[in-house]
């Protein structure tokens, strides 16, 4: 029953994979070859951050064309869940927007590698009729979210937006209540750039916002914002684009107002690419560089250095290898910036260290 199911899935996968070029005869012979190998289908389970999920699901589909024997599965359950499940070895890899902290790494039953897979930006979105390209500085963003700036026509906002007609409308704040990587990146940025924020609120996946309404998930934020003129909130870039929310240009460490985009996020990653630590856990929040968008971050896949199962481990390593090379090209249409080449080189070295016992999983030909 199960084998029959596998075969059916395998043939399906193959027929999708071969569609563009292969002839019918080729398909047949390939299919019969697969029938004998059908027991070799390998399932790789992952779970974690929801932010890279659209990209990961694209990867899962595309990777079936590369190797029809592999089924990669990813449950988008949140960064915290990803860390938890990888530590309990429920999944083969975890996904997290925020790198694991030392304490968590120490508790894990094995050495965990952080593999950056793509880049994301958190945008400050707003709902103000007729205002496009609003400019904000970290100071103003912090003061708005602290509840100190209460009105859109406040002089602090007006000073950054000369020539823009700002309505005299109260600001209503929306934040994420589901402990999310997005909140972690956003509050890390504010803590890093604003002393008052650091002291009063701090950084983390869940923080106590001094004012505003909580909404669950990106869709909660956007639903809330669309219903509330004068609202401001923070969401992932990819999501803001999908939901057609207006978002602000943010002043970076060089004093330039930068629009969040694939290029400005990549620029932020480039600016730190030269000094990425050995374990690849690095913050690119408030990065230096003229063109860097300051609220940017890597998102990670978490894998054990030492895998339990040889055949599965090999396929996992190969999949990740593919993801950081060919997989990067699939990111742009979905608004995910590609990894800088220097980072890719470092990840390659990490993936080569993955092993089962003393056997390395990736051979030199990769």
């Amino acid at each position, binding site marked *: 029953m199960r084998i029959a199911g596998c075969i059916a899935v395998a043939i399906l996968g193959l027929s999708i994979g071969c569609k563009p070029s292969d002839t019918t005869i080729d398909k047949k012979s390939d299919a019969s070859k697969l029938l004998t190998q059908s027991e070799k289908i390998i399932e790789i389970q992952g779970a974690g951050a929801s932010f890279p999920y659209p990209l990961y699901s694209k990867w899962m589909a595309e990777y079936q064309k590369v190797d029809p024997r592999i089924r990669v599965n990813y449950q988008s*359950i*949140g*960064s*915290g*869940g990803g*860390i*938890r499940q990888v*530590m309990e070895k429920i999944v083969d890899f975890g996904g997290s927007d925020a790198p*694991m902290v030392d304490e*968590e790494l120490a508790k894990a039953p094995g050495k965990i590698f952080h593999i950056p897979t793509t880049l994301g930006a958190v945008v400050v979105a707003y709902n103000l009729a007729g205002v496009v390209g609003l400019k904000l500085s970290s100071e103003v963003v912090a003061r708005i979210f602290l509840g100190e700036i209460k009105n859109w026509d406040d002089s602090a906002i007006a000073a950054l937006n000369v020539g823009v007609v700002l309505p005299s409308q*109260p600001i*209503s704040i929306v934040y994420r*209540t*589901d*402990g*999310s990587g997005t909140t972690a990146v956003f509050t890390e940025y504010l803590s890093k750039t604003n002393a008052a924020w650091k002291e009063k*609120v*701090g*950084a*983390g*996946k*869940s*923080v*106590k916002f001094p004012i*505003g*309404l*909580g*909404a*669950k998930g990106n869709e*909660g934020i956007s*639903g*809330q914002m669309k*219903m*509330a*003129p*004068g*609202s401001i909130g923070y969401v992932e870039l990819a999501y803001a684009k999908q939901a057609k929310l207006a978002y602000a240009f943010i002043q970076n460490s060089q004093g330039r107002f930068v629009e969040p985009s694939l290029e400005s996020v990549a620029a932020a990653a480039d600016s730190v690419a030269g000094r990425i630590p050995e374990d690849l856990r690095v913050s690119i929040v408030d990065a230096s560089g003229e063109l860097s968008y300051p609220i940017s971050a890597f998102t990670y896949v978490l894998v054990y250095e030492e895998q339990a199962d040889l055949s599965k481990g090999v396929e996992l390593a190969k999949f990740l290898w593919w993801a950081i090379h060919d997989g990067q090209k699939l990111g742009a249409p979905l608004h995910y910036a590609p990894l800088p080449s220097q980072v890719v080189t470092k990840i390659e070295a990490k993936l080569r260290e993955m092993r089962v016992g003393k056997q390395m999983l990736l051979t030199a030909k990769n």
Partner: protein
Amino acid sequence: MLPTHSEQAPRRELCEQKPSKVEGGRNFGDGLFKWITAGFAASAVILLAAMVMQMTRASALSIQRFGFGFLVGMDWDPVQEIFGAFPFVFGTVVSSVIALLLVIPIALGVAIFLAELAPGWLTKPLGLLVELLAAIPSIVYGLWGMFILAPWLLKNVYPILEKTLGFLPLFQGVPQASGRGMLAAGVVLAIMVLPTVASVSRELMVSVPKGYREGVLALGATRWEAIRVAVLPNVVSGIVGAIVLGFGRALGETMAVTMLIGNRAEISASLFAPAATIASMIANEYAGSSDELYLSVLTELGLVLFVLTLLLNMASKLLVWRVGRMPGVERSL
């Protein structure tokens, strides 16, 4: 927690033994049947005990660290590791109470109309429609509340409340620009609870023998008098039970409330202000957290909700019992 289980256990045994004493037969099949059903009955209790045990164990870290202060603490700041559950308990109870206050008159009206006044051809379809309200998924209520009800309340209801009842602190303050808050959550909860309360009440009223009404009508009573004298007193305790059932559902409702209540761990006198409930907090935070203490705290919140529901159930049993002994009820029986 534990004492209540030991209280329940002997009572259950009593119930089980009664019929076998009456039967007195020694049929093998009967014995087997008795043990099988007893096993099913026990499984519910075992499951409950296992859940409580597991939850207590999972929240041990939080219980040790915060003790009783957890229940009365007002502040919730994950960064500073300060956790107080009181705002969530408050939000849970208040949103459910609002729902009940709104739903009781409406549900009773629906039940009386369907059971006593509606023409025969209307009873079935209308009753079906009311029950259909219960079949709508919570998330649909949430989305509808978020996009339609809350803005509508904001535009049409809040200003009126503020104007007429604004002298009460309940209806003061500026509502959120999206209309979300305690009151919006309470209204949606009321709609969600309506079918439960209304259909149980209707069933109860229908079950009152026709002769009662006819007798009272024959004495020259009006329709309303007949309902008041012959029907309602017989079903009061059942209706209280139905209301408690609805209250229980409102306490634990998660999705729709999460989307409407505003999710702020604050206590405000104003019903326009955002709040948070225990269930919404767990739904929001559990999946995303990896920190051991935080998970433990969230589990303890679940335990608090559990105890809250248990207390409520016990209180309701007491209430039903008291209502059942009320002089008016006895007289009519």
